[in-house]
């Protein structure tokens, strides 16, 4: 039986151990399957454990590796997928009761590509129902129930990729696959201490994935290090005729960075300086505003200090002023209404868990086409103006989320619980309309389809809740975002912190 120390290792560390046959793919799969059985329900992380398939794939990997046919860094690595991706023969519930018995007789493109890379599917992971497309009101908006932050089980793992958020930092799998339309990878990464990449739009095929928004959905890796995100991207990115959005130049090559590459655990800024001389634009939120958390502000400031020490030049910047929130919401809710119209019109929408989702989807049927089209016209301008930032900066840096995770029991609409002595929002100056636009990193960059990676940058003092920093890069420069995060993680340990379960 493998030790917990091994199961918490990154892909970059496990790969060489598998290749040199220090550990066996079957042992490794069994180790994660056991943890899924033991902790999956406690964390609310699991939709379905794919034990039979996992052991079959692990045995095949073992046979090939033993025979000297090594497929690459994911060969024999167990992983989980958000339950919106089809996996042949297993339930694919989309986190929603109306689809609880749904099965597909094929693998989604990402699952197929990971199979081709020799990875081992151990679980379908929980998610917010329908990826939250109707607008949900809390952590419980899922067929699988709430997913919990492994570092504090009273708090939500973040969503809508909530299962990957809960499972990955708790070492229930080697890595996982999540999806993002508007914050669904970045948020669980921030709230659960995960290193995760939201790729450029069109870089990873969505064939076989639930559609929420044809023009905004992205699939991406959620891992225990930024380097692992690069390794997974190498396997899953690239053109695919089955997904009309797939970019012809979508292939991703994970590269060794400048300078002599240190071995895992031996990373040193002295020999490895990918940020040296790079200029980063910093979106600095006002942490005194309601909803923002001062501890996140401190952790972010400390992270900026680390980036400076690695040779980066930092310059505060603002995003171009557009109504990102309304534009993003318009785009994906209108598309979701079209996609789920059969669900709504059949009345099955009432089987959804969350009341806000039901009424949100029904309300979305009445979105005027002119508003949707106007949003699409603005989208072009947003794309152009955000692109200009990358003429000046290698990447944009911002907190992944400006607040901490919500309590599992707390509805989003309810007033937040505050530490003793903290003033309620009414005592603070009101936020002027539109003031948040130029700091809305998640909304703006999802509209423009830009890549972003979120990595942990601290844990709150009292509740031990993770906090994250995100690096946003120019379109199809996912490698730059990964490189920035790898540099940050080369001199920090936040991504290695283990939860006590």
């Amino acid at each position, binding site marked *: 039986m493998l030790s917990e120390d091994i199961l918490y290792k990154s892909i970059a560390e496990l790969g060489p151990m598998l290749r040199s046959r220090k550990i066996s793919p079957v042992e490794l799969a069994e180790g994660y399957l056991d943890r899924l059985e033991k902790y999956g329900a406690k964390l609310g992380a699991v939709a379905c454990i794919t034990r039979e398939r996992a052991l079959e794939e692990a045995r095949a990997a073992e046979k090939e590796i033993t025979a000297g046919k090594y497929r690459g860094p994911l060969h024999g690595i167990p992983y989980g997928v958000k339950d919106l991706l089809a996996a042949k023969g297993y339930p694919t519930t989309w986190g929603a009761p109306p689809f609880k018995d749904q099965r597909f007789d094929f693998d989604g493109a990402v699952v197929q590509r990971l199979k081709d890379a020799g990875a081992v599917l151990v679980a379908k992971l929980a998610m917010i129902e329908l990826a939250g497309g109707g607008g949900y009101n809390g952590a419980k908006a899922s067929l699988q129930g709430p997913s919990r932050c492994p570092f504090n089980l009273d708090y939500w793992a973040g969503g809508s990729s909530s299962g990957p958020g809960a499972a990955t930092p708790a070492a229930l799998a080697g890595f996982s696959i999540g999806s993002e339309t508007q914050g669904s990878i970045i948020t669980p990464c921030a709230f659960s201490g995960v290193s995760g990449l939201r790729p450029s739009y069109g870089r990873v095929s969505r064939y076989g994935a639930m559609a929420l928004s044809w023009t905004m959905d992205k699939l991406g890796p959620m891992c225990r290090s930024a380097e692992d995100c690069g390794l997974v991207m190498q396997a899953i990115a690239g053109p695919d005729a089955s997904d009309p959005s797939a970019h012809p130049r979508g292939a991703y090559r994970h590269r060794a960075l400048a300078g002599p590459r240190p071995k895992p655990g031996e990373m040193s800024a002295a020999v490895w300086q990918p940020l040296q001389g790079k200029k980063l634009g910093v979106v600095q939120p006002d942490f005194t505003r309601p909803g923002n958390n001062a501890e996140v502000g401190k952790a972010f400031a400390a992270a900026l200090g680390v980036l400076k020490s690695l040779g980066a030049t930092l310059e505060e910047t603002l995003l171009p002023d557009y109504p990102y929130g309304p534009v993003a919401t318009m785009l994906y809710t209108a598309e979701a209404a079209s996609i789920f119209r059969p669900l709504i019109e059949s009345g099955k929408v009432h089987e959804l868990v969350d009341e806000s989702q039901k009424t949100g989807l029904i309300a979305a049927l009445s*979105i005027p086409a002119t508003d949707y089209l*106007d949003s699409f016209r*603005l989208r072009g301008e947003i794309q152009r103006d955000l692109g200009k930032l990358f003429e000046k900066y290698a990447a944009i840096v911002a907190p992944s989320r400006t607040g901490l995770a919500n309590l599992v029991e707390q509805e989003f609409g309810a007033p937040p619980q505050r530490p003793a002595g903290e003033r309620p929002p009414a005592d603070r100056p009101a936020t002027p309309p539109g003031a948040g636009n130029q700091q809305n990193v998640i909304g703006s960059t999802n509209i423009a389809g830009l890549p972003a990676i979120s990595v942990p940058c601290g844990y709150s003092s009292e509740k031990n809740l993770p906090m994250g920093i995100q690096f946003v890069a120019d379109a199809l420069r996912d490698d730059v975002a990964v490189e920035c995060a790898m540099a940050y993680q080369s001199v920090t340990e936040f991504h290695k912190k283990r939860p006590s379960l």
Partner: protein
Amino acid sequence: MKRMNRRHFAKLAGGAALAPGVASFSPPPLGASQSPQQPAGPPAAETAPPYGMTKEQEARVKRNIERREQQNAALRSRTLPYSLEAAFVFHVKEGATSPAPRKANARG
């Protein structure tokens, strides 16, 4: 197996949620922006809410639409240049009767 594209996949999966015997519903609710003039008719209380909604859910939908209308004020207040097209492009697909594409290395 023949691969289907994502739009077909969504349609297939959406259809999977349909159960036989589900009652048909009234037309969709109209948002404020779509119902500038309502003809005089029976009081609303006599009409069942569409999509099998309860009265409470119908009220939530109305609130949702009102909130969206407020949020969209920021969107609608923008003057979009006449030349600004939507950020998607529709391509024609060459069919059976389209002229055959010329090969790059074709000669005379």
